[in-house]
């Protein structure tokens, strides 16, 4: 019998405790949480009260090292293709054209002074596929591929999720391709000619030697 009354008593007491807690929160509803980010020194001094942030207008700020939308500083990209190989889900696609020797100056250098040896006409990142793991960023030798703290980049059309970073237009790329082909053909011809010349020289030398 005492258990029976004890049950009723603990029931009443714990229910009252719970109701006290919810009521405390109800009256605390005049306060609202601020929208300081976690990197703000006052972060834990502004978390009391209603914690909703109304998203499009208020948002929890992303810290500066936030790892969201990928971005490629194509000026610094040397077209090495490490990121393409490292990506576990192959969301980066890349095409490169070798820079012809006379174009090396036009193609320029990276910000830390490294000569770029490839045109990158296609550098597409499908950010819809990207799982922001950061592996591509870690392998990038020039640190041109970075995750930016921009976390909201929704689109209505899925094709807009493919970001193009290439530094040549299609026409330019075709021109460069032709030029490269010419240069290569030229080089091949010269090489051939040189080889032939060397052969004839050698033959002549042999002949003259006889």
């Amino acid at each position, binding site marked *: 019998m005492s258990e029976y009354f004890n049950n009723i008593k603990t029931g009443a007491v714990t*229910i009252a405790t719970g109701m006290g807690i919810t009521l405390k*929160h109800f009256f605390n509803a005049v306060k609202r949480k601020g929208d300081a980010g976690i990197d703000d020194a006052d972060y834990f001094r502004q978390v009391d009260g209603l914690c909703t942030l109304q998203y499009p207008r208020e948002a929890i700020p992303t810290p500066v090292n936030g790892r969201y939308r990928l971005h490629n500083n194509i000026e610094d990209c040397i077209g090495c293709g490490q990121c393409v190989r490292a990506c576990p889900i192959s969301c980066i696609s890349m095409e490169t054209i070798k820079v012809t020797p006379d174009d090396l100056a036009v193609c320029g250098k990276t910000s830390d002074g490294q000569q770029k040896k490839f045109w990158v006409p296609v550098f597409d990142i499908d950010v819809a596929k990207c799982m922001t793991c950061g592996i591509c960023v870690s392998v990038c030798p020039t640190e041109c591929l970075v995750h930016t703290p921009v976390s909201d980049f929704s689109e209505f059309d899925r094709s807009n999720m493919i970001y193009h970073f290439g530094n040549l237009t299609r026409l330019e790329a075709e021109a460069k391709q032709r030029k490269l082909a010419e240069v290569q053909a030229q080089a091949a011809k010269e090489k051939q000619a040189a080889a032939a010349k060397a052969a004839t020289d050698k033959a002549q030398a042999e002949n003259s030697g006889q």
Partner: protein
Amino acid sequence: MSVSAIPQISLPFLMGNSLNAWSDALAGLTISWFPLGLVIIAAIPLVFIALYALTYGVYGERKISAFMQDRLGPMEVGKWGILQTLADILKLLQKEDIVPASADKFLFVVGPGILFVGSFLAFAVLPFSPAFIGASLNVGLFYAIGIVAIEVVGILAAGWGSNNKWSLYGAVRSVAQIVSYEIPASIALLCGAMMAGTLDMQQINLHQSGPYGFAHFYLFQSPIAWLPFLIYFIASLAETNRAPFDIPEAESELVAGYFTEYTGMKFAVIFLAEYGSMFMVSAILAIVFLGGWNSPLPNLGALALYDWTSGPVWGAFWIISKGFFFIFVQMWLRWTLPRLRVDQLMYLCWKVLTPFAFIAFVLTAIWEIYVP
């Protein structure tokens, strides 16, 4: 403090002194053969339910729950989200009215109707003000207890007609629960009726009138009245399927219980019925134990607070505020407590509430006889 010792108080406002002046006047209003007044009388509670469900019931509950949970609640539609409920209604109106192919069409359609009618019929005997009552019955309280049982039929029809296992579970649970909790609820109300010596709701209110405001309420007239008051409050939670007794619609167990298959306006009607009965039980609680439309403020010498805050309009204000207060407590409980299990629910009803209700009944009788 004897009941008869309280003088008939005057109702200084508007329409004379007699009880039910407004409703009597309205009842006499006919245009040729058409009993327009009766229609208006019937429409007033209906409009009231709709308005209150729209404002306090849905919006209020959402906001209250949000504040208790450190959230903001609806904020987008209108300032502070005030128009959110309207948006919801519009959405529900536009929705396709689906009747599942394998459902029993008649029961499926009729269920929400019965449910709503059940809770709405009880409003007929609720005195909304000293001057207004839908139907002044001398067995008002008895009628209110009885008519609510019709809801059970509606729930069973909805649950069985849906031809869904979850709905059936919900319906069966609900029926078992409501029928069981009728007993402690009725006995608890009987204590109030015993103190008043009548079942007429207006008379019960009248007996709790007096210049000392709240001191005349049954809850403060006798300490024993607290017991039936608490019992009825707990039982009323179960009767309206509110948490912690919301097992018929237990979201995490039965998806949505007996209204799993309902969409659109039928769903809205079920919702309306639920909010209707929430107010109904709160109002009965207020009438029987807390003086109904009487002002709780006492006359303090020259400050005649009671007299200033009495009258038909004030009466309506008081009873609605008291009802709303209890609805707030219902919401408060709902957003605090977990849900009971079926057998625990029955345990509470049969082994705790019912014996205590009987004890309260006997004690009240003794109090009424031996305490002047």
